[in-house]
């Protein structure tokens, strides 16, 4: 039975919101089949990865802590992706932001006061922005594609991290381990719910998403971002400067990635270590798409991806699933989302098409 696509007159709103759910559903189904095929209990694997973290209240704090950096980075990226600025190097900006914050922490390690943490946050945002400024400069001045430059700089950022951990920033009292000294009380993110891991960054992620939603939908700047991405010539006609938009979206993406970096260093880590980068910057790309580049959708998507992280860990311990399993599920989610995206603009028709019927 032939399948054919028929263009809708207007994109379907319901499909716009339904497809992320469909994509997650298809991922679970396919995942179960794949893991059964390679000799695991496929159903149990899917259950552990997608469901068990949600129904276990003890894991909710972990979910919040994992989701926060993903949401913050993805919200930043969504500005760029909407404006057709493909910053895929958020991981590097996240590392550089964390390093900048760490730099402040190390410089103030004998001091205390409520000003230190905000200063670290500002430094982190500036660090992420500085790392994103290079691709912004190259794109606006020379027309260098930002996809490759942002990614290349991520590899460089990892080496900067290694260099600082192995040399200048190594904890002098740390038995020669390549890591910094522990942050002091004024440098750590406070927890907001006592007796849990939930730090200040978690509610702030929500605040950032709501603020981004306001900017995106209610301000001329957000309108500019949306216009430049969809119709560059119309944006020019409307008086929006393309280069300024590139700069703005890279600065927002870099700044928020850097802020997420500081939150992570001053929160769960409490110091800086070479194992700091775990790919949040890349997963955030999936989060941004799964959330339909909509700040509030990103909050939901961030929680879904956090579930797969937590679930991946439990599946590893309980079922012996390899740790790459979570990554595979994440990639599949993005694949299925992109595949089902077609449903927003096209209707699927089964059966012979009109030409065949007429013949």
């Amino acid at each position, binding site marked *: 039975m032939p399948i054919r696509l028929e263009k809708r007159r207007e994109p379907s709103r319901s499909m716009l919101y339904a497809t992320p759910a469909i994509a997650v559903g298809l991922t679970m189904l396919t995942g179960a089949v794949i893991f059964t095929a390679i000799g695991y209990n496929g159903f149990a694997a899917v259950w552990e990865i997608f469901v068990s973290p949600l129904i276990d209240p003890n894991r909710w704090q972990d979910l919040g802590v994992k989701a926060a950096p993903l949401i913050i980075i993805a919200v930043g990226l969504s500005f760029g992706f909407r404006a057709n600025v493909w910053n895929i190097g958020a991981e590097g900006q996240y590392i550089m932001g964390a390093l900048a914050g760490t730099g402040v922490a190390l410089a103030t390690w004998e001091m205390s006061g409520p000003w230190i943490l905000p200063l670290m946050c500002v430094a982190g945002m500036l660090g992420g922005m500085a790392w994103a400024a290079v691709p912004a400069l190259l794109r606006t001045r020379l027309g260098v594609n930002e996809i490759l430059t942002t990614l290349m700089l991520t590899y460089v950022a990892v080496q900067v991290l290694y260099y600082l951990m192995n040399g200048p920033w190594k904890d002098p009292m740390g038995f020669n381990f390549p890591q910094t000294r522990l942050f002091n009380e004024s440098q750590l993110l406070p927890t907001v719910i006592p007796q849990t891991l939930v730090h200040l960054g978690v509610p702030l992620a929500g605040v950032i998403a709501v603020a981004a939603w306001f900017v995106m939908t209610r301000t*001329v700047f957000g309108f500019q971002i949306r*216009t430049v991405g969809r119709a560059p*010539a*119309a944006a020019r*006609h409307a*008086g929006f400067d393309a280069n300024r938009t590139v700069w703005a979206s890279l600065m927002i993406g870099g700044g928020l990635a850097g802020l997420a970096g500081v939150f992570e260093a001053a929160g769960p880590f409490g110091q800086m270590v070479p194992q700091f980068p775990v790919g949040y910057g890349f997963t955030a790309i999936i989060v941004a798409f799964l959330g339909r580049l909509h700040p509030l959708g990103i909050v939901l998507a961030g929680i879904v991806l956090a579930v797969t992280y937590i679930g991946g860990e439990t599946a590893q311990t309980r079922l012996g699933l390899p740790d790459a399993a979570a990554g595979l599920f994440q990639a599949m989610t993005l694949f299925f989302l992109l595949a089902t995206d077609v449903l927003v603009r096209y209707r699927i028709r089964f059966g012979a098409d009109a*030409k065949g019927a007429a013949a």
Partner: protein
Amino acid sequence: MTMTAPPRIELDGVTKAFPGVLANDRVSFAVKPGEIHALLGENGAGKSTLVKMIYGIMQPDAGAIRWNGAPVTVATPKAARGMGVGMVFQHFSLFEAMTVLENIALGMDENLGRRALEARIRAVMAEYGLTLDPHRVVTTLSVGERQRIEIVRALLLKPKLLVMDEPTSVLTPQEVALLFRTLRQLAAGGCSILYISHKLHEIKELCDHATILRGGRVVGACTPARESSKSMAELMIGGSLKQIAKVEGRTFGAPKFTVQGLSLPKIGDFGTALSGISFSVRQGEILGIAGVAGNGQNELLLALSGEIPTSDPNAVRIGNASLAAVAIGARRRAGLSAVPEERNGHGAVPDFSLTDNAILTARDRMGLATAGILSTGRARDYAAAVIKGFAVKATGPEALAESLSGGNLQKYIMGREIMQTPEVLVVSQPTWGVDAGAAAAIHQALVDLAARGSAIVVISQDLDELLALSDGLAVINQGRLSPVMRVGEVAIDEIGLLMGGVHGDPKATAKLAHDPHIKDVYDTPSIGAAHAH
């Protein structure tokens, strides 16, 4: 049809539907061998869809196509070429970064060697008196030369039927004359020609028979030579033509919009440089700018609207205020609005709602945003007012721009600018691809805006439109603008010659006007270029 001479091609009840539109509804007509047959219809009448089915790009939903009397299914363009159908598209299907030779090779189904192909190209060009350098890259060619590539490509296949889709929309009157000569030569040799156009005088001059389409249906057939232009036009448009209500003997106010020595370097490989453009438009006046496509019209619009900044600070002024150093947003606030030629993606964002498309250009003058925050309610109200004021067929302010027909979107865009009552309005191709009803409404709106005291510049390739609309007329060629002439005092031939690029040199004009061998113009498209340097 007699047994002895079946028609070369016959369409019988051909029907094609797209979601929401019936593009062709039971269309039937036949073209005899050696006949030049016109397919006449307004934009949107379904001509292009029909042609695509004849050439195998699309398949009919119902109906039959017969070739020399035998039913055929034209599955692909290759099959069409195999039958002997040659095609010259309205929008050339050329590959700009490639050479003429490569372009022609792509249109051939047999794989000749490069040398053999070049030899055959030269032979065909000699036969029909065409000239073209096979090794030139397409980007370096004029529009007329580009069309010649398509014609040569079609002729190489020794077609039995040549389909020409709006071939003259980009040619000067002189180039048109030469094209017609080639077509007559072909027809005399037995090749049928299906000539698609909405230009009545051309059809009267060239075609043996005409089939008239309206709204996807055949509404009439005639012998153009025996028919008056008016009667064909009424068949085509479906009702009598609405005249533009224009007050005779109008007087104009003070010069409102002055452009003095506007120059712009060439942008990119496809651009045209503007050089020393000067004109002045008074309050209440409409200035028309004619010209063949690609002679700097787009650049002129962008330079006037402010999308491209110009270096000379005094080149563009409203009243006495200089605007040249000012970007598009500030120009708009100062009262200068512009409507670009391309609706989708330039004048409007296709997947934005009409409300958002109102914000696009009306946010400052209509107060749709304050201190950087959008006033969505006011934007919706303004969009609704435009929809109402310009009778735009849309489901409402939340309808997406892309869901509107071309004519309705153009009405919306024009309305969006006009309802801001700009002191100066610059529009490019205001009725391109728009149905007759919408075109009439747009023309009337422009005239009314002028009557309220705005200065208006209309850039168009449609000479008829400009003659009906404007008070003054200038011609743009190779990025230079002719002096402004008064409409009514200027002869069409003269405008035609200016469009061909011989302005500023009275001797050249006189010579060409009296030269019986207009072929020279066709063979030396560099006249304009030589003049420009």
